[in-house]
Protein backbone atom coordinates (compact mmCIF):
# COMPACT_ATOMS: atom_id res chain seq x y z
CA UNK A 1 0.00 0.00 0.00
CA UNK A 2 1.41 3.40 -0.97
CA UNK A 3 2.08 5.82 1.86
CA UNK A 4 0.83 9.37 1.78
CA UNK A 5 3.35 12.24 2.10
CA UNK A 6 2.19 12.78 5.70
CA UNK A 7 2.77 9.14 6.54
CA UNK A 8 6.19 9.19 4.93
CA UNK A 9 7.16 12.28 6.90
CA UNK A 10 5.94 10.69 10.12
CA UNK A 11 7.92 7.57 9.42
CA UNK A 12 11.05 9.59 8.75
CA UNK A 13 10.67 11.50 12.01
CA UNK A 14 10.21 8.25 13.90
CA UNK A 15 13.30 6.77 12.28
CA UNK A 16 15.34 9.83 13.25
CA UNK A 17 14.12 9.64 16.80
CA UNK A 18 14.99 5.98 16.99
CA UNK A 19 18.42 6.58 15.62
CA UNK A 20 19.17 9.26 18.20
CA UNK A 21 17.86 7.06 20.97
CA UNK A 22 20.07 4.17 19.89
CA UNK A 23 23.09 6.40 19.62
CA UNK A 24 22.48 7.56 23.15
CA UNK A 25 22.19 4.00 24.44
CA UNK A 26 25.26 2.81 22.63
CA UNK A 27 27.35 5.82 23.57
CA UNK A 28 26.21 5.65 27.16
CA UNK A 29 27.11 2.01 27.30
CA UNK A 30 30.53 2.58 25.86
CA UNK A 31 31.26 5.38 28.32
CA UNK A 32 30.06 3.64 31.42
CA UNK A 33 30.80 -0.03 30.93
CA UNK A 34 34.34 -1.37 30.98
CA UNK A 35 35.61 -2.51 27.65
CA UNK A 36 35.33 -6.27 27.81
CA UNK A 37 37.13 -7.28 24.70
CA UNK A 38 40.78 -8.12 24.70
CA UNK A 39 41.98 -6.48 27.92
CA UNK A 40 39.86 -8.52 30.28
CA UNK A 41 40.32 -11.74 28.32
CA UNK A 42 44.06 -11.19 28.30
CA UNK A 43 44.07 -10.80 32.07
CA UNK A 44 42.03 -13.99 32.42
CA UNK A 45 44.43 -16.12 30.36
CA UNK A 46 47.41 -14.69 32.17
CA UNK A 47 45.84 -15.45 35.54
CA UNK A 48 44.95 -18.96 34.43
CA UNK A 49 48.45 -19.68 33.12
CA UNK A 50 50.05 -18.46 36.32
CA UNK A 51 47.68 -20.21 38.70
CA UNK A 52 48.05 -23.51 36.86
CA UNK A 53 51.77 -23.03 36.58
CA UNK A 54 51.30 -23.68 32.87
CA UNK A 55 53.57 -22.88 29.97
CA UNK A 56 50.80 -21.19 28.02
CA UNK A 57 47.09 -20.33 27.92
CA UNK A 58 44.83 -18.96 25.22
CA UNK A 59 41.25 -18.20 24.26
CA UNK A 60 39.80 -18.82 20.82
CA UNK A 61 36.35 -17.65 19.77
CA UNK A 62 33.90 -19.35 17.47
CA UNK A 63 33.36 -17.68 14.13
CA UNK A 64 30.07 -19.15 12.94
CA UNK A 65 30.41 -17.70 9.46
CA UNK A 66 33.72 -19.38 8.69
CA UNK A 67 33.10 -22.42 10.96
CA UNK A 68 36.39 -21.87 12.69
CA UNK A 69 37.96 -20.96 16.00
CA UNK A 70 40.00 -17.75 16.01
CA UNK A 71 42.64 -17.19 18.65
CA UNK A 72 42.02 -13.85 20.31
CA UNK A 73 44.29 -13.73 23.34
CA UNK A 74 47.27 -15.78 24.46
CA UNK A 75 49.86 -15.79 27.19
CA UNK A 76 53.13 -17.67 27.51
CA UNK A 77 54.99 -19.88 25.06
CA UNK A 78 54.07 -19.21 21.44
CA UNK A 79 51.75 -16.33 22.35
CA UNK A 80 52.81 -14.02 19.54
CA UNK A 81 52.62 -16.67 16.85
CA UNK A 82 49.20 -17.97 17.81
CA UNK A 83 47.46 -14.59 17.92
CA UNK A 84 45.15 -14.10 14.97
CA UNK A 85 45.45 -17.69 13.74
CA UNK A 86 42.41 -19.85 13.25
CA UNK A 87 41.58 -23.54 13.10
CA UNK A 88 38.48 -25.20 11.53
CA UNK A 89 35.81 -26.20 14.02
CA UNK A 90 36.15 -29.88 13.19
CA UNK A 91 39.91 -30.02 13.70
CA UNK A 92 42.06 -30.56 16.72
CA UNK A 93 41.29 -31.08 20.35
CA UNK A 94 40.10 -27.50 20.59
CA UNK A 95 37.64 -28.15 17.74
CA UNK A 96 36.36 -31.26 19.48
CA UNK A 97 35.77 -29.27 22.66
CA UNK A 98 33.92 -26.58 20.70
CA UNK A 99 31.67 -29.10 18.95
CA UNK A 100 30.96 -31.39 21.88
CA UNK A 101 30.66 -28.66 24.50
CA UNK A 102 32.66 -30.85 26.89
CA UNK A 103 36.07 -30.17 28.44
CA UNK A 104 39.06 -32.31 27.56
CA UNK A 105 42.25 -33.10 29.45
CA UNK A 106 45.02 -34.80 27.47
CA UNK A 107 48.21 -35.92 29.16
CA UNK A 108 50.11 -36.70 26.02
CA UNK A 109 48.90 -35.25 22.77
CA UNK A 110 50.96 -37.78 20.81
CA UNK A 111 48.52 -40.43 21.98
CA UNK A 112 45.41 -38.50 21.05
CA UNK A 113 44.15 -39.00 17.53
CA UNK A 114 42.20 -35.75 17.65
CA UNK A 115 45.29 -33.56 18.17
CA UNK A 116 46.18 -31.42 15.16
CA UNK A 117 49.95 -31.51 15.00
CA UNK A 118 50.06 -29.40 11.84
CA UNK A 119 48.27 -26.54 13.49
CA UNK A 120 50.44 -26.70 16.63
CA UNK A 121 53.60 -26.71 14.55
CA UNK A 122 52.39 -23.70 12.61
CA UNK A 123 52.19 -21.75 15.86
CA UNK A 124 55.76 -22.66 16.75
CA UNK A 125 54.82 -24.44 19.96
CA UNK A 126 53.80 -28.08 20.21
CA UNK A 127 52.48 -28.90 23.68
CA UNK A 128 52.64 -32.20 25.48
CA UNK A 129 49.55 -31.81 27.65
CA UNK A 130 46.41 -29.80 27.06
CA UNK A 131 43.48 -28.83 29.22
CA UNK A 132 40.64 -27.28 27.19
CA UNK A 133 37.30 -25.96 28.38
CA UNK A 134 34.35 -24.73 26.31
CA UNK A 135 33.14 -21.16 26.86
CA UNK A 136 29.36 -21.28 27.08
CA UNK A 137 26.74 -18.60 26.62
CA UNK A 138 23.65 -20.44 27.77
CA UNK A 139 23.97 -23.65 25.82
CA UNK A 140 25.85 -22.17 22.90
CA UNK A 141 29.59 -22.72 22.68
CA UNK A 142 31.11 -19.32 21.90
CA UNK A 143 34.74 -20.25 22.31
CA UNK A 144 37.36 -22.47 23.94
CA UNK A 145 39.93 -21.75 26.61
CA UNK A 146 43.13 -23.83 26.63
CA UNK A 147 45.93 -24.27 29.10
CA UNK A 148 49.11 -26.02 27.94
CA UNK A 149 51.84 -27.96 29.70
CA UNK A 150 51.65 -27.79 33.46
CA UNK A 151 55.22 -26.99 34.41
CA UNK A 152 55.50 -28.75 37.77
CA UNK A 153 53.48 -31.84 36.87
CA UNK A 154 53.25 -34.27 33.95
CA UNK A 155 49.60 -33.54 33.25
CA UNK A 156 46.46 -31.77 34.34
CA UNK A 157 44.19 -33.42 36.89
CA UNK A 158 40.48 -33.33 37.68
CA UNK A 159 40.80 -30.41 40.04
CA UNK A 160 42.54 -28.46 37.31
CA UNK A 161 39.54 -29.07 35.08
CA UNK A 162 37.19 -27.63 37.66
CA UNK A 163 39.45 -24.64 38.25
CA UNK A 164 39.67 -23.92 34.55
CA UNK A 165 35.89 -24.08 34.48
CA UNK A 166 35.80 -21.06 36.79
CA UNK A 167 38.07 -19.05 34.51
CA UNK A 168 36.11 -20.16 31.48
CA UNK A 169 32.89 -18.93 33.04
CA UNK A 170 34.45 -15.50 33.64
CA UNK A 171 35.69 -15.34 30.08
CA UNK A 172 32.32 -16.41 28.68
CA UNK A 173 30.56 -13.68 30.67
CA UNK A 174 33.01 -11.07 29.44
CA UNK A 175 32.58 -12.14 25.83
CA UNK A 176 28.79 -12.31 26.04
CA UNK A 177 28.67 -8.83 27.50
CA UNK A 178 30.91 -7.43 24.77
CA UNK A 179 28.83 -9.10 22.07
CA UNK A 180 25.69 -7.68 23.61
CA UNK A 181 27.10 -4.16 23.56
CA UNK A 182 28.14 -4.59 19.95
CA UNK A 183 24.65 -5.54 19.00
CA UNK A 184 22.62 -3.53 21.45
CA UNK A 185 21.25 -1.36 18.68
CA UNK A 186 20.12 -4.33 16.62
CA UNK A 187 18.75 -6.12 19.65
CA UNK A 188 16.77 -3.05 20.65
CA UNK A 189 15.26 -2.62 17.20
CA UNK A 190 14.43 -6.30 16.88
CA UNK A 191 12.76 -6.25 20.26
CA UNK A 192 10.67 -3.23 19.35
CA UNK A 193 9.78 -4.77 16.01
CA UNK A 194 8.46 -7.88 17.66
CA UNK A 195 6.52 -5.80 20.12
CA UNK A 196 5.05 -3.75 17.30
CA UNK A 197 4.01 -6.84 15.36
CA UNK A 198 2.51 -8.41 18.44
CA UNK A 199 0.46 -5.30 19.12
CA UNK A 200 -0.67 -5.06 15.53
CA UNK A 201 1.06 -1.70 15.04
CA UNK A 202 1.90 -2.07 11.39
CA UNK A 203 3.18 1.51 11.10
CA UNK A 204 5.73 1.15 13.85
CA UNK A 205 6.74 -2.24 12.52
CA UNK A 206 7.29 -0.78 9.03
CA UNK A 207 9.30 2.11 10.43
CA UNK A 208 11.51 -0.24 12.37
CA UNK A 209 11.98 -2.36 9.28
CA UNK A 210 12.98 0.75 7.33
CA UNK A 211 15.36 1.70 10.10
CA UNK A 212 17.18 -1.57 9.93
CA UNK A 213 17.72 -1.23 6.21
CA UNK A 214 19.07 2.26 6.37
CA UNK A 215 22.65 1.08 6.26
CA UNK A 216 25.67 1.83 8.44
CA UNK A 217 26.28 4.76 10.75
CA UNK A 218 26.96 8.29 9.63
CA UNK A 219 30.30 10.01 10.22
CA UNK A 220 28.72 11.95 13.04
CA UNK A 221 27.62 8.86 14.91
CA UNK A 222 31.04 7.23 14.40
CA UNK A 223 32.66 10.31 15.89
CA UNK A 224 30.23 10.19 18.78
CA UNK A 225 31.14 6.59 19.53
CA UNK A 226 34.84 7.39 19.27
CA UNK A 227 34.27 10.16 21.77
CA UNK A 228 32.46 7.74 24.05
CA UNK A 229 35.46 5.38 23.89
CA UNK A 230 37.77 8.24 24.85
CA UNK A 231 35.54 9.21 27.74
CA UNK A 232 35.72 5.64 28.95
CA UNK A 233 39.52 5.82 28.98
CA UNK A 234 39.48 9.18 30.70
CA UNK A 235 37.17 7.76 33.34
CA UNK A 236 39.87 5.26 34.25
CA UNK A 237 42.53 7.89 34.87
CA UNK A 238 43.59 9.26 38.24
CA UNK A 239 41.64 12.15 39.80
CA UNK A 240 44.05 14.93 38.80
CA UNK A 241 44.38 13.71 35.17
CA UNK A 242 40.64 13.31 34.85
CA UNK A 243 39.95 16.82 36.10
CA UNK A 244 42.52 18.22 33.70
CA UNK A 245 40.78 16.45 30.78
CA UNK A 246 37.40 17.76 31.86
CA UNK A 247 38.80 21.32 31.93
CA UNK A 248 40.24 20.87 28.42
CA UNK A 249 36.92 19.58 27.11
CA UNK A 250 35.01 22.40 28.80
CA UNK A 251 37.31 24.91 27.14
CA UNK A 252 36.78 23.28 23.74
CA UNK A 253 33.02 23.22 24.23
CA UNK A 254 33.02 26.92 25.20
CA UNK A 255 35.09 27.65 22.11
CA UNK A 256 32.51 25.88 19.95
CA UNK A 257 29.65 27.77 21.60
CA UNK A 258 31.29 31.17 21.16
CA UNK A 259 32.09 30.41 17.50
CA UNK A 260 28.50 29.52 16.78
CA UNK A 261 27.24 32.58 18.66
CA UNK A 262 29.44 34.85 16.59
CA UNK A 263 28.69 32.95 13.39
CA UNK A 264 32.35 32.20 12.63
CA UNK A 265 33.03 29.49 10.13
Amino acid sequence: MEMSPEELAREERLVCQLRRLLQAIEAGGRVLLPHTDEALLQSIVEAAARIFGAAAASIALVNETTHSLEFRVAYGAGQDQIMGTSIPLDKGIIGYVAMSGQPIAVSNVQQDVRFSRDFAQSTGYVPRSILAMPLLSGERVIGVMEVLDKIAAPSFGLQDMELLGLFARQAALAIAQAQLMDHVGEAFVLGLQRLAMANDSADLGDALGAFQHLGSESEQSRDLLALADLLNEIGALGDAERRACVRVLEALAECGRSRSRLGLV
Partner: protein
Amino acid sequence: MTEESTRPAWSQQFAADALREILATGPIAGLAPEWAWEGSTGKGVRVAVVDSGVEHDHPALGDSVCGGVAIEFDERCENYVRIEPEDHPCDLSGHGTACAGIIHAIAPDAAIYSVRVLGRDMSGRAIQLAAGIDWAVENGMHVVNLSLSTSRQEYYALFHELTDNAYFHHMVLVSAVNNIPVPSYPSLYSSVISVAAHEGHDPLTFYYNPNPPVEFGAPGIDVRVAWNEKQYTTCTGNSFAAPHIAGIVALIRAKHPELTPFHIKTILWACAANTRRE
Protein backbone atom coordinates in the same frame (compact mmCIF):
# COMPACT_ATOMS: atom_id res chain seq x y z
CA MET B 1 21.65 -21.07 40.11
CA THR B 2 22.72 -20.98 43.77
CA GLU B 3 21.96 -24.65 44.13
CA GLU B 4 24.23 -25.47 41.18
CA SER B 5 27.16 -23.53 42.54
CA THR B 6 27.00 -25.21 45.94
CA ARG B 7 26.57 -28.74 44.60
CA PRO B 8 29.69 -30.84 45.18
CA ALA B 9 31.90 -31.02 42.13
CA TRP B 10 31.62 -34.25 40.17
CA SER B 11 35.08 -35.57 40.87
CA GLN B 12 36.16 -34.39 44.27
CA GLN B 13 34.24 -36.96 46.26
CA PHE B 14 36.17 -39.73 44.50
CA ALA B 15 39.61 -38.22 45.04
CA ALA B 16 41.80 -40.45 47.20
CA ASP B 17 41.81 -38.07 50.14
CA ALA B 18 38.06 -37.50 49.96
CA LEU B 19 36.81 -41.08 49.77
CA ARG B 20 34.84 -42.20 52.77
CA GLU B 21 34.55 -45.71 53.99
CA ILE B 22 31.09 -47.26 53.81
CA LEU B 23 30.12 -49.96 56.28
CA ALA B 24 28.05 -52.93 55.12
CA THR B 25 26.62 -55.11 57.84
CA GLY B 26 24.18 -58.00 58.12
CA PRO B 27 23.15 -60.12 55.14
CA ILE B 28 24.02 -57.35 52.68
CA ALA B 29 27.62 -57.60 53.79
CA GLY B 30 27.59 -61.08 52.27
CA LEU B 31 27.35 -59.59 48.79
CA ALA B 32 30.83 -59.77 47.31
CA PRO B 33 32.36 -59.64 43.81
CA GLU B 34 32.99 -63.37 43.91
CA TRP B 35 29.27 -64.04 44.09
CA ALA B 36 28.19 -61.03 42.04
CA TRP B 37 30.19 -61.37 38.84
CA GLU B 38 33.20 -63.64 39.14
CA GLY B 39 33.39 -66.08 36.23
CA SER B 40 30.85 -64.10 34.20
CA THR B 41 31.63 -62.88 30.69
CA GLY B 42 28.36 -61.07 30.05
CA LYS B 43 26.93 -63.85 27.87
CA GLY B 44 23.28 -63.38 27.02
CA VAL B 45 23.14 -59.73 28.07
CA ARG B 46 22.17 -56.99 25.61
CA VAL B 47 23.89 -53.62 26.14
CA ALA B 48 22.81 -50.51 24.24
CA VAL B 49 25.36 -47.72 23.80
CA VAL B 50 23.37 -44.52 23.24
CA ASP B 51 25.96 -42.20 21.73
CA SER B 52 27.65 -41.10 18.50
CA GLY B 53 27.40 -44.60 17.06
CA VAL B 54 29.66 -47.65 17.42
CA GLU B 55 32.14 -48.75 14.78
CA HIS B 56 30.99 -52.33 14.35
CA ASP B 57 34.24 -53.66 12.91
CA HIS B 58 36.72 -52.00 15.24
CA PRO B 59 39.31 -54.57 16.35
CA ALA B 60 38.73 -53.65 20.01
CA LEU B 61 35.11 -54.85 19.76
CA GLY B 62 35.55 -58.31 18.30
CA ASP B 63 32.16 -59.61 17.11
CA SER B 64 30.23 -58.02 19.93
CA VAL B 65 28.33 -55.41 17.89
CA CYS B 66 25.04 -57.00 16.83
CA GLY B 67 23.29 -54.09 15.18
CA GLY B 68 21.55 -50.90 16.19
CA VAL B 69 19.73 -47.82 14.98
CA ALA B 70 20.40 -44.25 13.95
CA ILE B 71 17.98 -41.71 15.42
CA GLU B 72 17.75 -38.41 13.55
CA PHE B 73 15.69 -35.31 14.21
CA ASP B 74 12.97 -34.98 11.56
CA GLU B 75 10.05 -32.58 11.93
CA ARG B 76 7.96 -34.55 9.46
CA CYS B 77 7.98 -37.69 11.59
CA GLU B 78 5.95 -38.72 14.58
CA ASN B 79 7.59 -37.46 17.77
CA TYR B 80 10.00 -35.53 15.49
CA VAL B 81 12.44 -38.42 15.20
CA ARG B 82 13.25 -40.81 12.39
CA ILE B 83 14.62 -44.18 13.46
CA GLU B 84 16.56 -46.16 10.91
CA PRO B 85 17.98 -49.63 11.55
CA GLU B 86 21.72 -50.11 11.15
CA ASP B 87 22.86 -53.69 10.83
CA HIS B 88 26.48 -52.58 10.58
CA PRO B 89 26.64 -49.40 12.64
CA CYS B 90 29.31 -46.77 12.25
CA ASP B 91 30.58 -44.05 14.57
CA LEU B 92 30.58 -40.42 13.50
CA SER B 93 33.21 -39.34 16.02
CA GLY B 94 34.71 -42.14 18.10
CA HIS B 95 33.05 -41.37 21.41
CA GLY B 96 30.53 -44.20 21.20
CA THR B 97 33.18 -46.70 20.08
CA ALA B 98 35.34 -45.68 23.03
CA CYS B 99 32.48 -46.49 25.42
CA ALA B 100 31.63 -49.76 23.67
CA GLY B 101 35.27 -50.80 23.79
CA ILE B 102 35.41 -50.38 27.55
CA ILE B 103 32.23 -52.43 27.98
CA HIS B 104 33.53 -55.17 25.69
CA ALA B 105 36.82 -55.36 27.53
CA ILE B 106 34.99 -56.02 30.81
CA ALA B 107 32.12 -58.17 29.43
CA PRO B 108 33.49 -59.74 26.24
CA ASP B 109 30.42 -61.89 25.55
CA ALA B 110 27.81 -59.17 26.01
CA ALA B 111 25.95 -58.21 22.84
CA ILE B 112 26.41 -54.52 22.04
CA TYR B 113 23.84 -52.44 20.18
CA SER B 114 24.60 -49.00 18.79
CA VAL B 115 21.93 -46.32 19.28
CA ARG B 116 23.24 -43.29 17.46
CA VAL B 117 21.73 -40.02 18.65
CA LEU B 118 24.64 -37.65 18.04
CA GLY B 119 25.66 -36.20 14.72
CA ARG B 120 29.11 -35.63 13.27
CA ASP B 121 29.35 -32.38 15.19
CA MET B 122 28.92 -34.24 18.47
CA SER B 123 25.54 -32.70 19.13
CA GLY B 124 22.01 -33.99 19.12
CA ARG B 125 18.65 -32.92 20.37
CA ALA B 126 17.25 -33.99 23.69
CA ILE B 127 14.35 -35.55 21.82
CA GLN B 128 16.76 -37.90 20.03
CA LEU B 129 18.26 -38.95 23.36
CA ALA B 130 14.77 -39.58 24.72
CA ALA B 131 13.93 -41.69 21.68
CA GLY B 132 17.13 -43.64 22.19
CA ILE B 133 16.18 -44.61 25.72
CA ASP B 134 12.71 -45.48 24.56
CA TRP B 135 14.07 -47.68 21.77
CA ALA B 136 16.25 -49.54 24.26
CA VAL B 137 13.25 -50.36 26.45
CA GLU B 138 11.10 -51.38 23.48
CA ASN B 139 13.83 -53.66 22.15
CA GLY B 140 14.59 -55.56 25.30
CA MET B 141 17.97 -54.10 26.23
CA HIS B 142 19.24 -55.18 29.64
CA VAL B 143 21.76 -52.38 30.17
CA VAL B 144 22.05 -48.94 28.60
CA ASN B 145 25.21 -46.84 28.65
CA LEU B 146 24.43 -43.15 28.48
CA SER B 147 27.63 -41.12 28.34
CA LEU B 148 25.73 -37.97 27.49
CA SER B 149 22.96 -35.87 28.98
CA THR B 150 20.90 -32.77 28.51
CA SER B 151 20.82 -29.74 30.76
CA ARG B 152 17.56 -28.41 29.31
CA GLN B 153 15.16 -27.84 32.17
CA GLU B 154 12.13 -28.29 29.95
CA TYR B 155 13.02 -31.95 29.46
CA TYR B 156 13.24 -32.74 33.17
CA ALA B 157 9.81 -34.35 33.31
CA LEU B 158 10.11 -36.28 30.05
CA PHE B 159 13.39 -37.90 31.08
CA HIS B 160 12.02 -38.65 34.50
CA GLU B 161 9.14 -40.52 32.92
CA LEU B 162 11.46 -42.38 30.54
CA THR B 163 13.91 -43.45 33.20
CA ASP B 164 11.13 -44.57 35.52
CA ASN B 165 9.69 -46.60 32.65
CA ALA B 166 13.10 -48.16 32.05
CA TYR B 167 13.45 -48.94 35.76
CA PHE B 168 10.07 -50.66 35.90
CA HIS B 169 11.01 -52.70 32.82
CA HIS B 170 14.13 -53.81 34.73
CA MET B 171 16.44 -52.07 32.32
CA VAL B 172 19.56 -50.70 34.07
CA LEU B 173 20.46 -47.24 32.86
CA VAL B 174 24.08 -46.27 33.57
CA SER B 175 24.49 -42.55 33.10
CA ALA B 176 27.62 -40.37 33.14
CA VAL B 177 27.21 -36.98 34.78
CA ASN B 178 28.19 -33.89 32.84
CA ASN B 179 31.85 -32.89 33.09
CA ILE B 180 30.73 -29.33 33.71
CA PRO B 181 28.69 -28.57 36.85
CA VAL B 182 25.39 -27.90 35.11
CA PRO B 183 22.07 -29.79 35.43
CA SER B 184 22.52 -33.20 33.87
CA TYR B 185 19.45 -35.20 32.92
CA PRO B 186 18.90 -38.10 33.32
CA SER B 187 22.21 -38.55 35.16
CA LEU B 188 20.98 -37.01 38.37
CA TYR B 189 17.84 -39.08 38.89
CA SER B 190 17.74 -41.78 41.54
CA SER B 191 16.37 -44.35 39.10
CA VAL B 192 19.63 -44.46 37.14
CA ILE B 193 23.14 -45.45 38.16
CA SER B 194 25.05 -42.17 37.96
CA VAL B 195 28.81 -42.28 37.43
CA ALA B 196 31.71 -39.85 37.56
CA ALA B 197 35.43 -40.37 37.06
CA HIS B 198 38.10 -41.34 39.55
CA GLU B 199 41.83 -41.41 38.96
CA GLY B 200 42.48 -45.14 39.27
CA HIS B 201 43.06 -47.50 36.36
CA ASP B 202 41.83 -50.90 37.49
CA PRO B 203 38.65 -51.45 35.43
CA LEU B 204 36.92 -53.42 38.18
CA THR B 205 37.65 -50.94 40.99
CA PHE B 206 34.86 -48.49 41.62
CA TYR B 207 33.68 -46.44 44.58
CA TYR B 208 30.38 -45.46 46.13
CA ASN B 209 29.68 -41.85 47.08
CA PRO B 210 27.58 -41.51 50.22
CA ASN B 211 26.64 -37.95 49.17
CA PRO B 212 24.72 -38.30 45.91
CA PRO B 213 23.46 -37.33 43.37
CA VAL B 214 26.55 -38.78 41.71
CA GLU B 215 26.60 -42.26 43.22
CA PHE B 216 29.55 -44.15 41.75
CA GLY B 217 33.10 -43.39 40.66
CA ALA B 218 34.90 -45.49 38.07
CA PRO B 219 38.09 -45.04 35.99
CA GLY B 220 37.81 -42.04 33.73
CA ILE B 221 41.22 -40.36 33.77
CA ASP B 222 43.68 -41.08 30.96
CA VAL B 223 41.80 -44.16 29.84
CA ARG B 224 43.13 -45.88 26.75
CA VAL B 225 40.12 -46.30 24.45
CA ALA B 226 39.15 -47.33 20.98
CA TRP B 227 38.32 -44.50 18.60
CA ASN B 228 36.75 -44.44 15.17
CA GLU B 229 38.53 -45.46 12.00
CA LYS B 230 40.10 -48.33 13.95
CA GLN B 231 42.21 -45.97 16.00
CA TYR B 232 43.01 -45.74 19.70
CA THR B 233 43.43 -42.71 21.89
CA THR B 234 43.71 -41.70 25.54
CA CYS B 235 40.79 -39.83 27.03
CA THR B 236 39.64 -38.23 30.24
CA GLY B 237 36.04 -37.65 31.31
CA ASN B 238 33.00 -39.00 33.06
CA SER B 239 31.95 -40.41 29.69
CA PHE B 240 34.55 -43.14 30.08
CA ALA B 241 33.70 -43.94 33.68
CA ALA B 242 30.08 -44.91 32.96
CA PRO B 243 30.96 -47.78 30.57
CA HIS B 244 33.13 -49.37 33.27
CA ILE B 245 30.05 -49.65 35.49
CA ALA B 246 27.91 -50.69 32.52
CA GLY B 247 30.34 -53.52 31.83
CA ILE B 248 30.24 -54.71 35.45
CA VAL B 249 26.44 -54.53 35.45
CA ALA B 250 26.44 -56.69 32.29
CA LEU B 251 28.60 -59.26 34.11
CA ILE B 252 26.20 -59.29 37.08
CA ARG B 253 23.11 -59.62 34.91
CA ALA B 254 24.61 -62.46 32.94
CA LYS B 255 25.36 -64.41 36.12
CA HIS B 256 22.10 -63.44 37.88
CA PRO B 257 19.46 -62.73 35.21
CA GLU B 258 16.63 -62.44 37.69
CA LEU B 259 17.97 -59.31 39.40
CA THR B 260 16.26 -55.92 39.17
CA PRO B 261 17.90 -52.46 38.96
CA PHE B 262 17.50 -51.94 42.70
CA HIS B 263 19.16 -55.28 43.46
CA ILE B 264 22.04 -54.38 41.17
CA LYS B 265 22.56 -50.97 42.70
CA THR B 266 22.69 -52.60 46.14
CA ILE B 267 25.25 -55.11 44.88
CA LEU B 268 27.38 -52.32 43.44
CA TRP B 269 27.16 -50.50 46.76
CA ALA B 270 28.25 -53.59 48.69
CA CYS B 271 31.08 -54.39 46.27
CA ALA B 272 32.49 -50.87 46.08
CA ALA B 273 36.18 -50.63 46.93
CA ASN B 274 35.43 -48.22 49.78
CA THR B 275 32.84 -50.51 51.35
CA ARG B 276 33.99 -52.49 54.36
CA ARG B 277 31.95 -55.62 54.80
CA GLU B 278 31.50 -56.98 58.32
